[in-house]
Structures are given as structure tokens and as C-alpha cells.
């Protein structure tokens, strides 16, 4: 019979605190067991009694025959921590003891936090990965364990690091590469792995350049294909601002990139100065003389 009733924890602690309930050698306990492992407890004496095993988050209660070995099957205790054992019976004072439940030595699960999920290309140490190794019962595997981190870019470029866990956790930093695309960020340990996808996106436009040609009463402005400093195409939807200044007045229009270029028609004013910008990046300037 397994119960998690919180009152039992309190009750067991109170029993242990009663004066005269000194620990006796009547209980034979393991020093420690792995989470989920089968184990047994041997008691001495006679009669019927009740055995309590209480730890953080888990409590067991058994009606036992004192003096016999009590068997606990695999999976009976699965939360890692320090457990207190109390045996009470009608004929004798309570007997107490304690043992530890430790995590399984082999990780069964990896919790992998990779940040950010999207960043610009060419950022040194811009990607962080943190790993928590867990056993089959979600206990943190606290023994030092090597973790392999591997970041593979869309072009096949790979960065690798191996880090030993400390108190169940390991982390590393990676650089974003010069090419945009979806990178696979993998953490491996003990034959298991977890993968996250990091989106590497183009940086600010670089060498923004436009050209102008007449279009009736208007001037047609069109940028060259807009790329960042690594040659990646800046994504469609990025805003390019055209500004035309003439005789103390100006006209502006924010145009989203479509198919890699921005184009717009603006009034053709002879002598006008036309500039192009995207965000805080300035492009070239044209003086319209026609």
C-alpha cells in the first residue's frame, strides 16, 4: 500500500521525536539504493507492527510481521533523497533508521534549453545551451557525466564542445555562423540526445544601394538586391525608407522588401535629393536633375 498523505510525514516525524524512542539496532537497512531499485528491510522481534518509510515527496506504509524481512519491489521508492524509517509495534518501543535513495547513474532523459531560438549571423558566443540530465524517474543525475554539444549549420559547418555536468547541469556557448538558415543544436549524453533548432537570420543590410529612372511624371526608385555584410539576402518584409527632399519639402515612404528588392515611384522634382535607408543603416544618395 503506497500513500502520499502529507499527514503521514508529520506523524512519522512526531513518532521519531518522542522521548525514549532512541534508535535501536533492530532494523537492518541498506545504506543507499538507486531510485526505483528493489530493496528489503529486516527487523528483529515478534508481533505485528507498522513500518513507515518517509522522505521528501514520498511515503510508504506497510503492515508487517516484526522479525521478518520486508521486500519492496522495483519502483517502490523513486524520488531521490534522504528517507526515514520507523517501525512501530504494540509490544516494543518504536525503532528508527534512515537511508538514502540516489538517482540512477545513467541518464534516461535530457532537458535541453537552447537560447535564443533566433539570432543574427556572426555573433560570437550568441547561442547558449544548458542541459539537465535526468534519470528514468526525473531525478537529477548528480554524478559528473560528460555531455556532447554539437551545433551544425545548414551549410554543414559544425561546432562541438564536451562539458562534464556539475550538480546535474552543464552548459556551453556557441557562435552563430556567417550563413543564414536553421541550425541543429544537439546535446548528447549516455546514448540519448535532444535537439533544438536555432534560426540564424541575416544581419543589418550592408552596402544598401538604389537606382532611379524616370517613369512618366514620377521617378522610379529601386534598390539592388539587399544583402547583409555576409552576403545573406535580407528577408522580404524588411522596411526600406526612401526620402526625397526638394525646395524645403520632403516625401517619404516606407517600402517592404519584396523578392529581395524595394521599389517605389515618387514625384519627380528636378533638383530633388533622394536618399535610401533601412533602420539605422544609410544607403546611397541620388540627385534627380531631370
Amino acid at each position: 500500500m503506497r500513500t502520499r498523505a502529507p499527514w503521514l510525514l508529520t506523524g512519522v516525524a512526531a513518532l521519531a521525536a518522542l522521548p525514549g524512542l532512541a534508535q535501536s539496532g533492530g532494523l537492518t537497512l541498506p545504506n543507499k539504493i538507486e531510485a526505483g531499485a528493489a530493496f528489503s528491510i529486516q527487523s528483529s522481534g515478534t508481533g505485528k507492527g507498522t513500518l513507515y518509510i518517509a522522505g521528501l515527496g514520498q511515503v510508504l506504509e506497510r503492515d508487517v510481521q516484526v522479525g521478518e524481512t520486508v521486500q519492496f519491489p522495483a519502483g517502490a521508492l523513486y524520488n531521490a533523497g534522504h528517507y526515514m524509517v520507523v517501525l512501530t509495534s504494540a509490544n516494543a518501543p518504536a525503532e528508527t533508521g534512515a537511508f538514502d535513495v540516489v538517482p540512477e547513474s545513467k541518464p534516461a532523459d535530457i532537458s535541453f534549453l537552447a537560447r535564443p531560438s533566433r539570432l543574427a549571423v556572426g555573433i560570437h558566443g550568441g547561442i547558449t545551451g544548458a542541459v539537465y540530465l535526468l534519470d528514468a524517474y526525473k531525478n537529477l543525475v548528480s554524478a559528473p557525466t560528460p555531455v556532447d554539444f554539437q551545433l551544425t549549420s545548414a551549410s554543414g559547418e559544425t561546432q562541438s564542445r564536451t562539458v562534464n555536468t556539475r550538480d546535474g547541469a552543464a552548459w556551453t556557448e556557441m557562435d552563430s555562423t556567417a550563413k543564414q538558415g536553421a541550425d541543429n543544436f544537439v546535446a548528447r549524453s549516455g546514448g540519448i540526445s535532444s535537439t533544438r533548432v536555432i534560426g540564424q537570420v541575416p544581419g543589418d543590410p550592408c552596402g544598401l544601394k538604389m537606382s532611379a529612372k524616370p517613369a512618366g511624371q514620377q521617378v522610379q526608385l529601386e534598390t539592388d538586391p539587399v544583402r547583409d555584410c555576409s552576403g545573406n539576402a535580407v528577408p522580404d518584409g524588411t522596411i526600406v525608407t526612401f526620402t526625397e527632399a526638394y525646395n524645403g519639402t520632403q516625401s517619404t515612404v516606407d517600402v517592404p522588401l519584396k523578392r529581395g528588392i524595394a521599389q517605389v515611384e515618387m514625384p519627380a522634382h528636378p533638383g530633388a535629393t533622394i536618399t535610401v535607408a533601412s533602420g539605422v543603416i544609410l544607403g546611397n544618395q541620388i540627385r534627380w536633375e531631370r
Partner: protein
Amino acid sequence: MKTGGLLAGILAAATVALVVLGTVWPARSALAYTGGQGLLRSSSTPEAAVQNLGDEIRTQAWQRAYDSLANKAQFTEPEFVGDLTGYYPNLRTYSGVDHVEVFPLHASDNDADVQLKIYWATVVGTSVSTRDLHVVRNGDHWEAEWPIVKRPVVPPQVIPVNYLRWDVIYRGPGDDWGAQDVESPHVRIVDMHPVQRAEGVVILGELLNEDVVPAYVSVTATLLGDNQAPIGTEGSFDKISHLLLPKQVTPFFIQFPGASLSAVRSIRMTPFSTLVSASADPVIEIDNQRINPAPGASLSGQLINQSGQVVNVAHVLGTFYDSTGHVVWIADQYVDHALLPQTAVPFDIHIPEDLARKISSERAVVASYTAGGSL
């Protein structure tokens, strides 16, 4: 007990008497607000004729207003109403006239010019429209001629729109707790400048979306005094363009009424951004921007909707810089006409007189709202 009953009887009788008096001889203002003609006066002068017309517009007595016009043969009543309230849903669709003002401009024996200012109460504050009316004598009374602006005609055409749109799928409840959610857009404050004004402290600045995805943005500022104790926290509210497409910049304006800059030791700025589904259209050109000097300093210009859809509400934000490129003021105006495709709509943003002299350059941006669409 007896005295109480007598008092109750007197009160009831007085109430009935007052109700009868108010019904038989209502106050002119009360009658006007019920839609009656309480405030209407004889149109014996040009000003009275225009005032009557303004009152009829305020009470939405469209037929009476239309019938009173001297030039009603030139247009229909629906056209008259459409000219006032807009032919397409816009800021005025859900607003009413708060009050009107009449200013005589010129008068002779048989005709006159009178300016009518209509103060619309809209969801974003008062919107003023001004019309100069020609008024003519007709026998013993005066009649106004309405300067009709007919429905703009958009020529039949096909405007190709291969618009971009971003949709967002967030992480679901069944995902591993370590799985990433979509990253919030990266935004950056590229300029920030506190200013002391008579009404309090104002923080002016600009915010850049440096990401490749659209962002819904706002900015909050906290003034900190001695020992980093907060003096107050305010947000940009609507003095910002909330939707920023990639690499787009918006000004922001945060006001701390009654605060004094001398008590401020530092300012904590908190930009907020979140992913939002958005469309890259419509594209709106801001044409003929001109800074008009004091007195009556303003930034005027025209909005031209280059897309094929009707933009119902446009919000123009002007950022004004001094000769060194620092932001010295930010002002805005909601345009209360819908923007039809390829049709110019004027705007005029007021600039404080004392700042007009410092302004060397400006930059205007437009936030647009389309019925049934996203921001």
C-alpha cells in the same frame, strides 16, 4: 409621522409640477439635446444661418440641415451626409459632434463668408474639421452654401498586391518544458531624450525593430529620484506606432504630468515587444511634407495610399530634430478620413511655437488601421 406624510406629499406635488413645467416650456438647450430645435434661431444673419446649420449637424438632423442649404440642388442628401461623416468607415463613423464654432470672415448686403468649425468627439480625442461657407441672402433670411467634397472616384484598375504576411505559431501545452518558444522580436531604443515642459516631464525617443519579424511594441519609462526611489511610471500609450515591421523605426512620446526634471536622477526605460501576426501592406507614401514656421507652426503634408485596399484610420507621427540630429519634439495626428487607393489626404500636425525655431529636420511615419484587418 403626520409631518413626514405632509412633507412627502409636498415633494411629490413639486416633482409633478416641475415635470409639467419642463415638458410644456422646455429649456432651449435641453430641447436641442433631445433633437428638437431648441437652439435654432432665426437665420436673419449669416452667422445665425451657419450656426443653425452647425446645430443641425450636431444633432444629426441631416434632412433639416440639407433642406436649409442654398446649393442643395448640386448634390443629394446622402452625399451631404457622406461628406460630413465619411464615405467609408473611418474615425468619424463612431463619433459625434461635440460642439461647433462660427467665425464671420466677410459680409456684404447679399452674401457673406463664414467659417464653421466642427469639433468631433472621437475615440482618440477631439478632431476638428473646418469649412469656409459662402452664405447668401434669400429674401428675409440667409442660407449657407455647403462646399461639398464629393466622393473621391478611384478609376477602375487592377493593383497587383503580392503582399507579405507573417503568422505566428506559439509553443503548445504538450511541448517539452525545455522546448523553445518563438523568440520575441529584438527591439532597441536608438534615441532617448527627457525634456522639461510646462506641463511636466516628457521623454522623447525612437525605437528600432532590429529583427526580421514584425513586432508589437510599446515603451514604459520610470523616473527615479534620490536613492533610486521611483517617482512615477508612464507608458507611451498611443504616441507610438505599435506595429513595427523589420528594421522600421517609430518615435515614442511619454508624458509625466506635473513631474520636475530637477528631481530626476535617472530614468529606467523598458521597451516591450512581442510577436504579432502582421501584413506588410498597405504602403503609404507621405508626400509634400513641409514644416510651416510660427505662428501656427505645423508639419503639413499628404498621405497617399499606394495599396489597393481602403485604409480606415491613419495615424501620422512626426519626429522633429534640431541641427545636431537630436529629437526635440514628437507630435501626432489622426486623419479622420479613410484613405482610398492612390488618393491624397492632407494632414497638419501642430508644433509648439517655442520649439518650432529649434527644428531643423523631421521624419514622419504612418500607422494604419484597416477594418477587419490586423494593426
